[in-house]
């Protein structure tokens, strides 16, 4: 039986037994994001000659964070709800050569992790944030999230949500991330190319991927996939005022700015070059 090409990057079997299939529900978009991310990493390893050993995947808690729970044939960590970015910060400070990819969700990154998201972007730490946005809290049963639109009924907004949602990309961009993009699971090739760019970017890459939760939204995966395609629109069309109620997808910003480690290294170099400095 021919195996899926990305299985080389997953731990199918280990001493205590099989780990696959992923614990995620049938048709969950998070599994697709893992597929896209592994393809992007594979491309960067082949094309740029990066070491597979330098890649580290860090996640928080939630459905998308299960991607780094125990499946990966890479160094990884399944950490605390909302704190994956702080953990990633520590890893970079210890070993700036690590290529860190963070799996997070809309609740993990923008609710409990919101403060760390803002500061990570502000610091422009060199890492890639893959924020799987399904507009709710999936793992715990479908509660409202900061990304749930106004009026939507969830298990904790049974009469309709009275809040407006975050625009996560606008949040990341305002906070200072130097590469910001949004796609959906229904845009596989664009997502893969964008993740490659994020990895190659020297700075904070924030990539939001709109994703389907078929179980809580009570639709088939195929239906939701079609819906994602239909409910998104290119940035160009959005800029021309033809978005309507559709969500703009594409690259929001791509700027060059020294990352945190580079700036701090300047401090180290300055101090060590002249002990008589009066600083």
């Amino acid at each position, binding site marked *: *039986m*021919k*195996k*899926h*090409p*990305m*299985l080389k990057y*997953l731990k199918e079997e280990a001493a205590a037994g099989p780990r*696959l*299939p*992923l614990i*995620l*529900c*049938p*048709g*969950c*978009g*998070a*599994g*697709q994001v*893992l*597929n*896209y991310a592994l*393809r992007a990493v594979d491309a960067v390893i082949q094309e740029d000659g990066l070491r597979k050993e330098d890649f580290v995947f860090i996640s928080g808690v939630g459905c998308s964070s299960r991607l780094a729970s125990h499946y990966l044939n890479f160094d990884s960590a399944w950490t605390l709800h909302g704190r994956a970015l702080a953990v990633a910060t520590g890893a970079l400070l210890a070993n700036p050569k690590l290529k860190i990819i963070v799996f997070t969700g809309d609740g993990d990154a923008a609710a409990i992790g919101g403060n760390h998201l803002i500061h990570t972007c502000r610091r422009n730490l060199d890492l890639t944030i893959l924020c799987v946005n399904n507009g709710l809290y999936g793992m715990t049963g479908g509660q409202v999230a900061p990304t749930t639109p106004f009026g939507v009924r969830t298990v904790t907004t049974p009469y309709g949500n009275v809040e407006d949602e975050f625009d996560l990309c606008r949040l990341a961009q305002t906070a200072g991330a130097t590469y910001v993009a949004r796609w959906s*699971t229904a845009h*596989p*090739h664009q997502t*893969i190319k964008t993740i490659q760019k994020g990895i190659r970017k020297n700075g904070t890459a924030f990539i939001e991927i709109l994703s389907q939760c*078929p179980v809580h939204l009570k639709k*088939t*995966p*195929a239906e939701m*996939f*079609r819906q994602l395609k239909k409910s998104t629109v290119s940035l160009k069309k959005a800029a021309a005022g033809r978005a309507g109620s559709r969500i703009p997808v594409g690259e929001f910003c791509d700027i060059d700015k020294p990352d945190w480690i580079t700036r701090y290294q300047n401090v180290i170099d300055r101090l060590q070059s002249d002990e008589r400095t009066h600083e």
Partner: protein
Amino acid sequence: MNKLHVNAAYCKGCLICVEVCPAAAIRPCPMINSRGYTLPEEDDMSRCTGCRLCETVCPDFAVAIETDEDGGE
């Protein structure tokens, strides 16, 4: 002719692969398997162009397309 391989231990029958196939070369299996899932199966693989979009979108790494270039591995 290309072949569709489905790992029944991993596939959860989400059928996104069938949804995206641009050549309509695969279809849902009419039978539910022992885990309650409707797996994809070959429909008319002469239509399959080897684009591997099904592999690309699979959330469970459960499908693989075998082409002649794969040399019968």
